[in-house]
């Protein structure tokens, strides 16, 4: 359990990251705010609590690795990396601009510090994470690999090829997280292509499966701590999340998967986000009583 003070620090980070996501995607005029807002708390837990990493030394060989498989959520990752000190926060304004290091989807060739791999094509992150995790074992390094999957991308066959592989090779220095926000571009996942029973599917594939409220930072960090103790099999956290989390009129709205806010709506959204954030802070206090 995090101290109340620590929890508040992390909640503030998540609030700041959500603000950046809204501002940078509106400034770019294109991008994916919905799935960036959903995963912000997960990224905060990883980069500001769970992972061993050094923003001043991004290639530190023993660093924990984070692989963003759902590459379209890169505004959230870029904002997290900037907040963590990998590059100046002002650079977030460059999202999707010509010549920018903040490409529309993460591009390793642009050498943005903190980016481990290119992504954007769905379904690849888990296999890549497997290879990195096994490399770590071969090199006798004890870093862990974290990979964030979208729920929609669990419809890709390669995810399940990689799921089989991870269990077969007992890759226990790997934690996958599914951003289970239940919406994909064409609608609810269960309408487009059913994923449920998703947790049972992963269990059947030989994984240690946890299911959490993925917006509760305490739950998230505890889940990560637990997966560190699981030996002999890979772990996956199915994080139940809300697409567009934090802005009332964006929550649960599939159109904000790939649609950005107009400058007028942005102001409304930022005010809405601030109100929500403050109420969350109050709730966290109440929870302590």
């Amino acid at each position: 359990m995090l101290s109340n003070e620590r929890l508040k620090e992390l909640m503030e980070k998540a609030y700041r990251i959500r603000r950046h996501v809204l501002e940078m995607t509106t400034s770019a005029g294109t991008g994916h705010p919905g799935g960036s807002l959903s995963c912000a708390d997960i990224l905060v837990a990883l980069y500001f609590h769970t992972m061993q990493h050094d923003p001043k030394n991004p290639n530190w060989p023993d660093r924990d690795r984070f692989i963003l498989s759902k590459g379209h959520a890169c505004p959230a990752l870029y904002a997290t990396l900037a907040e963590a000190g990998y590059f100046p926060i002002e650079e977030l304004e460059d999202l999707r601009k010509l010549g920018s290091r903040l490409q529309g989807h993460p591009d390793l060739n642009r050498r943005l510090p903190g980016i481990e791999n290119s992504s954007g094509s769905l379904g690849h992150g888990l296999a890549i994470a497997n290879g990195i995790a096994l490399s770590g074992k071969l090199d006798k390094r004890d870093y862990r690999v974290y990979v964030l999957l979208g729920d929609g991308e669990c419809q890709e066959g390669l995810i399940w090829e990689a799921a089989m592989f991870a269990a077969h090779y007992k890759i226990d220095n790997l934690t996958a997280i599914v951003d289970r926000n239940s919406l994909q571009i064409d609608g609810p996942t269960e309408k487009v292509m059913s994923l449920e029973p998703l947790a049972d599917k992963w269990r059947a594939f030989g994984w240690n499966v946890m299911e959490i409220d993925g917006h509760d930072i305490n739950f998230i960090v505890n889940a990560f701590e637990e997966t560190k103790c699981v030996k002999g099999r890979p772990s996956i956290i199915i994080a139940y999340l809300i697409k567009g989390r934090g802005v009332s009129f964006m929550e649960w709205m599939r159109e904000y998967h790939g649609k950005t806010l107009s400058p007028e709506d942005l102001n409304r959204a930022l005010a809405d986000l601030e109100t929500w954030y403050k109420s969350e802070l109050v709730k966290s206090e109440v929870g302590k009583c």
Partner: protein
Amino acid sequence: MKSTRDAYGECLVEYGKDERVIVIDADTSTSTRTNMFAKKYPNRFFNVGCAEQNLIATAAGFAYGGKIAIASAFAVFATARTWEQIRSFVAHDNLNVKIVVTHSALTNAPDGESHQSLEDIAMLRVIPNMTVIVPADAEETKQAIGAAIKHKGPCYVRLNRAGSPVIFDSSYEFKLGKGAVVKDGDEVTIIAAGNMVSKALEAAEILANEISVRVINLSTIKPIDEEIVIKAARETGAIVTAEEHSIIGGLGSAVAEITSTNIPTPIEFIGVKDKFGQTGVTTEELYEIYGLTASAIVEATRRVLLRKKR
């Protein structure tokens, strides 16, 4: 005769002394001969089963993790089924992944069209950062694999199922990105790769008394040795390309891309003419059907010389 896949299996055991090397296969290790490496270095061998996308994507992961990842399977499955993994990760991020395939093209005669890759060179050549190598025999295979492992970045090495005639001994020196004149001549040049190098040499032998034929082994198809191609065009004025691949997009196309912009030269293309493969008892009988023979090269040589003279 010696199959290039046998040479691969043997040399991989040697190159495996480098602890950075890991090998990954897709349920074909007995056929690709990576089983020899697996036996010697079991902790650095991984089998994804029947899952080629995972083969390449996991190899990419190993490369991100600092390894030299060698991924093997049959040519058709390791390319057609995995093109996006190769394009968007292995090549795009310039990863140290070496895709070494066997059973390429018609060398896998009995299995038929589903197993015969006649398009792979075109598919791989179009991808930025990719190196494409088609060794001509066992000795060149051994050296090419070594060069691919040393090279920093992705490589595609295309090997055979059936045996290939021995052309080179250990005095031969393979250089990545360089073609080699294997027979000199000044009236026409045959540029070949893979099994077609020995066919080209046969053709040159048949023509020995009437035409002075240069034969070039252009085993690195990308990056292509522009210099040797331009020199051949300038000095001999006519070119025949010979490859065990579709004439669309392969070695012949690569040569034509160079000559057309530097020194326009008549070219005749020997290759599979926009067709799928089929089952044959032997590779040689398929070569007859698809026109990949020494006599077909001889005829093409005569045709191109007529065009040169016009």
